[in-house]
């Protein structure tokens, strides 16, 4: 029987971990999910994981393994339901409680074949953005996203590799190539007025699907965004969100970091509903659709603390001479 760290065998540790895992997570899943859980005192809803890790005392690792309980937030013993209290030791193995916060699934950052709209992708030299949707010109199939996602903010060249997932999500060149850059609408930095941040990359039928990973099937006909329209988008970072269009005539100055600042006219601004942000970094390229009917309305490319910016989809499709594939 092997021994780990301060005396407990691996078998003892695993048995202790399994016991606490059952008591705090597996056998009480229904109670953790009950609406009343946590309303008076912290209960099972506060426990998000049980593992084995080196015990921490103060700010220091002790070198001794412990059964580690991961919680959304730490609380004093008096503020925790007696049943959900973590004992000091289990089967003679010490325990530890770590405030990990909530664990959140990040499903749209993985590798998808065929790849739907809403998942991570990007030019091989950028971090990651979002695959908006599929478009077609004549018989050629393309993925649609932003210039700064597919063409590295004007720096890309025709034929450059586009990865799914994007490099920041583990995409590698050439293993994860899903498309090759075809065309982009150049972004004019400085005082010139831009209409869209958009690009297309040629792909093939066997690598992609027209379905959006969280929106489902798209409406066939694009719709012009209007003030007050309730919209949704599906993006690599914030996934499915709802918002309301507040402006469809905005002229905005947008920072592209080291590349400079560009001004866009006739842009659509969207405010998140329910106090939640409509988008964040990595959501660039997401298709914004009208909630009722899933009709494409705009192509998301940036934003600020309060608003998300999208280019009207009709301007995007017109500039690139393509139509949406549904």
């Amino acid at each position: 029987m092997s021994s780990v760290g301060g005396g407990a065998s691996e078998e003892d540790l695993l048995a202790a971990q399994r016991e606490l895992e059952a008591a705090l997570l597996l056998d009480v899943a229904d109670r953790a999910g009950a609406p009343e859980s946590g309303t008076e005192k912290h209960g099972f809803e506060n426990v998000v994981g049980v593992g084995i890790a080196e015990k921490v005392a103060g700010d220091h690792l002790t070198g001794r393994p412990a059964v580690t309980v991961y919680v959304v937030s730490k609380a004093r013993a008096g503020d925790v339901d007696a049943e959900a209290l973590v004992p000091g030791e289990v089967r003679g193995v010490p325990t530890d409680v770590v405030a990990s916060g909530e664990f959140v699934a990040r499903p749209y950052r993985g590798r998808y074949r065929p790849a739907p709209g809403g998942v991570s992708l990007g030019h091989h030299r950028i971090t990651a953005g979002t695959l908006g949707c599929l478009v077609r010109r004549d018989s050629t199939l393309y993925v649609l996203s932003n210039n700064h996602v597919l063409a590295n903010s004007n720096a890309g060249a025709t034929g450059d590799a586009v990865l799914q997932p994007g490099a920041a999500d583990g995409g590698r060149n050439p293993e994860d190539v899903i498309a090759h850059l075809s065309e982009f609408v150049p972004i004019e930095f400085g005082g010139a007025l831009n209409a869209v941040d958009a690009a297309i990359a040629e792909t093939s039928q066997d690598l992609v699907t027209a379905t959006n990973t969280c929106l489902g099937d798209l409406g066939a006909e694009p719709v012009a965004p209007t003030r007050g329209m309730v919209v949704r988008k599906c993006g690599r970072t914030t996934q499915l969100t709802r918002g309301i269009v507040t402006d469809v005539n905005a002229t905005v100055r947008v920072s592209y970091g080291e590349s400079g600042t560009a001004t866009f006219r006739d842009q659509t601004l969207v405010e998140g509903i329910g106090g939640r942000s409509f988008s964040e970094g990595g959501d660039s390229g997401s298709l914004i659709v009208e909630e009722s009917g899933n009709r494409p309305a705009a192509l998301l490319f940036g934003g600020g603390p309060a608003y998300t910016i999208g280019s009207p989809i009709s301007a995007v499709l017109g500039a690139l001479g393509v139509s949406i594939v549904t």
Partner: protein
Amino acid sequence: MISEADALAIKRRHETEWLSIDGVHGVGLGEAGGECVITVYVDPGRPDVRAQLPERVESCAVVPVESGGFEAYRG
């Protein structure tokens, strides 16, 4: 009541001037009670920026909104 086209024309006549003000990040269009409202997107907590904007221009109200700056998203 002003038409959408007229409101847009008024906005376009003035937006370049306002966008040259440090702390102004955008100019948009809204409406309130059938009246034209030009929205100016500005940095929060900047009374000096607000002071450089008129309350009305032609037949439109000018309303600053504290949006903060805009950026193209990186992953």
